[in-house]
């Protein structure tokens, strides 16, 4: 999480795209055939920076976010490998969003940069 937060905070394109964003987000990785537990990643995002990042297997251990973006583990893997676009994923039912879609749609570029940043972090599946 620390590595991702550092990479995101060094991503100038994210800082530009997310400069007006306020609102914490939790990414929920739902268990499926390839992964046997739910996992939660909390990001406190504020004006182009990530102020805090936490991971937990228990959702209630984390602060309540304004947004929750959830999907099965397999789809998360495809997202990180850029086989799925985060917004297309929402429109095709591969991911679900809790929170204002209208607000999210104004920051689709920031969402894209968040995904781009995952590729900069060494990830083992």
């Amino acid at each position, binding site marked *: 999480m620390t590595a991702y937060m550092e990479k995101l905070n060094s991503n*100038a*394109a994210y800082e*530009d*795209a997310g400069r*007006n964003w306020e609102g914490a987000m939790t990414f929920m990785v739902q268990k499926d055939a390839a992964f046997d537990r739910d996992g939660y990643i909390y990001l406190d995002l504020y004006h182009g920076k990530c102020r805090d990042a936490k991971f937990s297997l228990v959702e209630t251990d984390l602060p309540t976010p304004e947004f929750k973006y959830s999907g099965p583990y397999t789809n998360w893997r495809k997202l990180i490998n850029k086989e799925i*676009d985060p*917004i*297309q994923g*929402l*429109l095709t039912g591969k991911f*679900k*969003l809790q929170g*204002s*879609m*209208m607000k999210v*749609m*104004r*920051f*689709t*570029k920031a*969402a*894209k940069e968040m995904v781009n940043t995952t590729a900069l972090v060494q990830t083992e599946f």
Partner: protein
Amino acid sequence: MFGEDSVSYLSTLDIKKAAIITDRNLLRTEIPGLVKKALPEGADSMVLGDISEEPPLSEMTAHLSRINDFAPDWFLAVGGGSAMDTAKILFALHERPDLSVYDITPLVKLGLGKKSRLVAIPTTSGTGSECTWAAMLTVEDEKRKHELASPEIMPRYAILDPAFVVSLPPEQTRNTASDAIAHSVEAYGSSWHNAFSDAMAEKALELILGGITGVMGDPKNLELRNQVHVGASMAGLAFSNSQIGLVHALGHALGAQFKTPHGKAVALFLPHVVAYNYDACPERYDRLNRIVPEQLREASFSESLENILEAIGQARNGIEAGIAEAEYEANLDNLVELASESTGMVTNPKDAGSPELRSLFMRAFSEERP
């Protein structure tokens, strides 16, 4: 439904009470009468004709009580993008009085269509709104255009009757054709392009470019009007399946800030964005360039687009588009901000940040060709 007298299809529908949503300009023409005449025998109708161009939400919702009192079972959107988008929103709010317009997103199940249905009869060629699940909403005090979208507000039928566009004045003809061309190009270049959108976009461009200069010279030519009209709808289907890009991101921002007619706004940016995008999708743009009629085609697609837009008499810089330079420069930060919030930023084939947006805004305003 398309082609000559396709409006007579209305007589086959089970219409008991039709709310005809049209705009102020069309109210003075024979068009509302043509629609009423095509209704099934015994059908009642009301005409809501007080819709301005790109109306704000407050104006749209002011009409709701009349609609609700009439209780239509069919909404007939008769007009350009503004009338069609207004009809989509009124349809949604009539079906669901509890709804906020901001709930009109693809992620929310709205449950529409229980009381009424929606038909669109475009009178421009065109925004393609008759074939899309999008509606543009202007929020006046925000000077912003919101992109509302839901599959549930897509019209059940689109009726493309050339009689409804044959009297479209030259300025609206060129503006709406410019928009349709931009739809085809952006759909084709989109990072979400797919076989369906590609097929529609290529054919749309072929039909529009093959007919539009002829239409400008001979506006009463029904065959050419029909060709461009169908092409514009196909362009709407194309971008409905692959989204728009930077051209519309910039165009929506300009329209929200300066009330520039939408087609005129996108026409300013189209060649410059294509030039900017070129190295991200050269084969795609080269393929589209081969569709351009020979007499207008240059080596580069962006240059060809300039020729096309000039040939139809479209404004080629900000001054020609009626924007004062000082005001434009003073609002550049706002324009960049608005454009950066568009979904077109993500589906554009090439990334762009604030510096690139600013540069595109400046280049489009100036005399420079791309």
